[in-house]
Structure formats: C-alpha cells, structure tokens
C-alpha cells in the first residue's frame, strides 16, 4: 500500500505538576502519493506535534503511522523536513548544505555534484553555491532548505511553516516555487501554516484542526493548487470560491480562539 496512513493517532503527555495534556486525539489522515495537504489551526491545536510524530521525532501514545506499508518508528531519510528557519548548517556553503543528504548516504562526489547542481538550478541559486548560508537573504535560505530536502529524494516532505518568517512579497514568490516543485517532483507534502491564504493556494487538501484536545475539525478538497500551477497566484485569489472558503475558514478559526479565551476566563473566574 502506497501513501501515508495516520491511524487513530493520540498524544498525551504528563506535565511536571502532575496534570497531563491531550495534544492530539484520534487523528486519522490518509494521504495518497503525490498529494499536498495543508494543515491549519489556532495555536496549540497540535499541528506541530502531529508533524513531529510523522517525522519520527516523537512517539505517539496511541495509534500509528504507516508510510508505503511500513510503520514509522523514528526519523529517516524517506521523510524530509523543511523548517521555518535556522535549520541550515551555517558552517557549510550552500552547495554543501544541499549535498548533505547524499553525502550522508555515501554517494560518490560526481553523482552528488550532479544532483546538487540540478537542484540549485531549479531553485535559482546556481551563482550562490559557494556562498556561506548566512550571507543569503531569508528567502534564499528557504530555497536552500527546499533544495536540501529534495536532494535526498524523500517520499514525503514535511513543511513546518517554511515561509512563516518571510516578508509578504518573498512569501508569494516562494509559494509559487513550492507549487512548481510539488508539481514537477510529484512528492507527497504535508504543509503546516498559519496563513489561511497559503493553505488554500497550495493545498490540494486542507485540514482545519481544533484545539484541546488537538483533533481534525474539518476537511476540504480544493481546486486552487491545480489552478495555480503555471499561473499568477494573485489571479487564483480572485476566484470567487477562494474568497468564500477563506472567509469560512477564518471565521471557523476565529470562533475556536474565542471559545478558548472564554474557557480560560471561565476557569479563572
């Protein structure tokens, strides 16, 4: 069986003061190969916990994750990860960063160079390959992070707010790049984001999560990612259904936040 199966996933951990937190409860997601899933939700809904479990950095208290038929039990090269920022190795040049995965596998240098050169072309950083990563702008650094992840040819790419730290213009450009890379490589991608627009533009599927306990609130199947390929993303945003869905999700998340506020105020009183 190909694809990613997340079944009955629950996560509950104890706090030092004796109470415990239910971070995730009965999360079920089935992702086919090549699908792009956006995950949205208010702070504290367990998005990042979910991603860390899929990446293998955390062990769930219940349930399991299967990728292409085998169980996920720790981090591995088949599940690549792109972080918000600060995950590049600043002691390596751009080229060495992108070639890190192949190097860990023990790939031959000329084979590695071919992969790295190709990916640097794809993300448009060929002329910066000898630079240190700290000499690059934030947007360029995220391009390096994307290329580094792709160089390893993972089956699934997990993105934890990869564009969250970028300015609005760079962010739009990078959204186009992510969309392009997804279509060209056909990778399965899970994208966590705080931006409803980004989730709508990039996600073929979209999950809105609710907090306390973290769970799936609503699921969408969206046409915008397909529309957006090879097109100006701003045109996609003018689509009437886009605005409608955006408003619907925004008010959904808004209500959740209100409810949290109300609940904490209630307990405080």
């Amino acid at each position, binding site marked *: 069986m190909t694809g990613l199966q997340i079944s009955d996933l629950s996560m509950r951990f104890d706090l030092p003061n004796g109470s415990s937190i239910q971070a995730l409860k009965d999360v079920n997601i089935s992702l086919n190969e090549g699908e792009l899933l956006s995950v949205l939700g208010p702070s504290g809904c367990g998005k990042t916990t979910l991603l860390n479990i899929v990446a293998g950095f955390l062990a769930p208290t219940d349930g399991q994750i299967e990728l292409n038929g085998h169980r996920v039990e720790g981090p*591995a090269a088949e*599940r690549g990860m792109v972080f918000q920022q*600060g995950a590049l190795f600043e002691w390596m040049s751009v080229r060495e960063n992108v070639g*890190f995965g192949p190097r860990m596998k023990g790939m031959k240098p000329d084979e590695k160079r071919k992969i790295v050169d190709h990916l640097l072309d794809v993300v448009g950083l060929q002329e910066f390959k000898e630079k*240190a990563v700290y000499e690059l702008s934030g947007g360029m650094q995220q391009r390096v992070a994307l290329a580094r992840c792709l160089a390893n040819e*993972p089956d699934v790419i997990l993105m934890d707010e990869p564009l969250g730290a970028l300015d609005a213009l760079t962010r739009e450009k990078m959204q186009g790049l992510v969309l392009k890379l997804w279509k060209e490589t056909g990778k399965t991608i899970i994208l966590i984001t705080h931006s409803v627009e980004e989730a709508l533009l990039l996600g073929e599927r979209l999950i809105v999560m609710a907090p306390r306990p973290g769970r799936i609130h609503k699921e969408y199947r969206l046409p915008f990612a397909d529309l957006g390929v090879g097109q100006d993303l701003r045109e996609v945003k003018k689509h009437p259904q886009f605005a409608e869905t955006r408003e619907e999700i925004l008010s959904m998340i808004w209500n959740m936040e209100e409810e949290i506020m109300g609940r904490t105020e209630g307990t405080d009183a």
Partner: protein
Amino acid sequence: MTLLGELWEELVEVLLTLVSAIPYVIGYVALILLTALIWRLVKRVLTPKKDYVSLKTVTFGDESAVVSNNVASVVSIVFLFVLWGAFTGSKLLPGFLHAPGPFIGDASFTYTVTAADGATDDATVAVRVYPNGADVEDITIEPGEGFAKNDAINIVAYRSSLFRVDENDELGREDEAFITAVDGQALESGGSVAMDFGRVSMTPRGTLNIYPSTGWQMEPIWLPPPEAVWSRLVEIADTGFRNSTLWEHLGFSLFRVIVGFALGAAVGIPLGYAMGLSNWFRGWFDPIVEFMRPVPPLALIPLVIIWAGIGEVGKIILLFLAALWIMAIAARSGVSGVRISKVHAAYSLGASKWQIMRFVIIPNSLPEIFTGARVAMGVCWGTVVAAELVAAEKGAGMMIMTASKFQNTDIVLMGIILIGVIGFSIDMLMRQAEKWLVPWKGKG
C-alpha cells in the same frame, strides 16, 4: 565587635586614600576633556567627513555611533609615557617637561649656638648633595673663629642626614651649649626651618637633621625612567637573568601555559561533550564542575605544591586544572546550544548519530569552545605568572619576583610590560584564529 572595628578602621583608611586621590583624578579627567575639545577644533579645520555615522544627530545613547577614537588612544598612550618621563627625569623628554627634580649641588646654612652663659656664636655648614652612585669630593672648609666651628657634609640626593654640627665645636651639649637658631631663625627641638635647598629640623635631642629638597620626581628605586627599563630589556635579552636568558624565562612560562591548556582542553572538551549529550554524565559531573569552577586556580597552588612539588609537573597540573573546567563548561554549553531544528533536519536527511556528532554538534559548538579557549588562555597566563611568583627556577613571574627582592624595579617593570604584551598577543592570536576557523560565529 573588635573585628567590625578593625574593618571600619581599614575602610576609613581606604576611603581617606581615595579622597586624597580625587584632585588628581579630576585633573586627569579635565585633561581628557581638554584634549577632546582640542581634537574637535582640529577636526573642524580638517576637511569634514560626511560618512554615515558623522551625519547622525543622535550619538549620545546610540551604541553604534560610539567607536573607539584612535587619536584619543594615541594621545592617551603618549601622555602616559610623558607622565612617566616627567616624573622620572627621563632623558627622552626635553628638560622643561620634567617635574622639579631633587636638589643637587652645594648649599650652606648657618647655625647659632648659645652657650650656658648666654654668649652666642655662628658657624656655617656647607652641604653638598650628589646623585646616588656619583663620585663626590668633600668640601674643604676653614674651621672659622669663635667656639662654634664650620662644618661640611655630603648627602646623597633623596636622602636626609642627621648631622651633629656641634661635635667639632668648642662648647657642646655637655657644656650646656645648645643650637638655638638656624640661618637666623629660632629653632627648638622638634621644629624645623625652611631653606632654599630644603629644610633643616632639630631632633628632640638637639641634633640637626638636614633634608635637601627631593622635588617631585620619583627616585629610580621606586620608578626608573622609561629608557632605563628599555636598556634593562636590551641587557637582559643579551646576557640573561639568573642563569637563564630572557627567552628561556618567557619560553618556559609560555610552554607551561600551552601544555597545561592543551591538556585541559583535551580532557575538558570531551568531558563537556559527554555532559551535553548524556543525562548520566551531566548528573555525574555537574556537582564536581560546578564546585571546582568558582575555586580560583591560585587557591590550589599550596595543595599542588604539597602533592607535586614546585617543578614543572606541579605547574602544569595547576594550569591543567585552570583550563579544564572552563573548557568543559564551554563545550557543554556549545552542545546544549545547538538548535534542535538543525539536529532534526540532519536526522531527517538520513544522518546517523555519529554523523550528527561530526557534522552538526561539533561544528555548532566550535564558536563556544573558542570563546572558552580565549578565556582559558587568559586565566592560564595569569595563573602561570602567579605560580611562578610563588616558586620557580625559570619564568616571567620568577624573574619579576626575584628582581623585586633586590629592588631592581626596572626589571620588575620590564617583566610586567612583557607579561602584558604576551597576554595581549595571545588574546589577539586567539581572536584571529577564531576568525579563520569559525567564521560562522554568531551567524546562526
């Protein structure tokens, strides 16, 4: 209560000393402000620069607008040497810059003896003040008329001299004849009379004490002039000190520091890594490291001497201990400081534990380790000098300690300057190495 009282007295003494220094401090600050003012005027004459910083209107409170002024640094150093030269009568300075020196040359005064019957007689004392170590001839004098006879005395500059001028007189103390005046001014026991060349006072027993003026300059035994220190340096570099050349003394100190530091780093860095990577190691060594860290290495000298004697081994053990804890703590915080996202990224790129260590944790900890190494080298250099002060046959510290016992202040000063220069050079080298080896420091 007695302890409190003693401490209070000490405190009062310290405060009084500080208060007496206030006028000098005010003068120094005034001089700094004056030079600043002069520099501002000079700059106005020069073509004004229009770089970004000079166009800032807010400079007070803007940290980036405050950079070290090189002119001020040069003036400050030059002033320091001028001050040094002025108060030591340095030949490098033109004479008019010298502070008033001690009186040197011939002078004389008269004293009046009053006999028991009321008769008085005057006699002259010729005083010749000569620089220490110079050849001096006695002044020849005629005894003169009357019962008081003329005298002559040679006095070394900066010294005073008790002189029984009535010893050669016909009437002395045993005849109830006493000195009652000097240069026509009445003088009693315990009093003193000012002269052109200094002053003359009388002890309770009636002996004259002659104080030629010492001026404002420092005696070479307290502070030798710069050129004396320089010529000492040349001399010792040439002929050595206490059976060893200067390079041996400095080389031995450096050798101890480098070996002690290298051993401390060789043990401390792995220890720090172990503490940063394993709960058990952290728990095991935390109490030891946290206890040993605040113990100054100098406090260990007595124990090290008891255990290992005063040879090389003892000193290297001491420096090893001085570097060990600093390096262990630096390596520990270097490991703990790695961003978890970097480690996660490396794992999800397929790195093994060993590869994570080699490609992520070690390079990530290098900047911290370099900072620790700079601190450790500084501490080691200070510790080695102090250890050599206590006991050593060779070394920079031994050199200045031995010299101080023979009051060779020029060697002491030379040694202190060399120790400072070497310590500064070590720090500069470490900074340069840091720039070359860990250019990513602070860029994460």
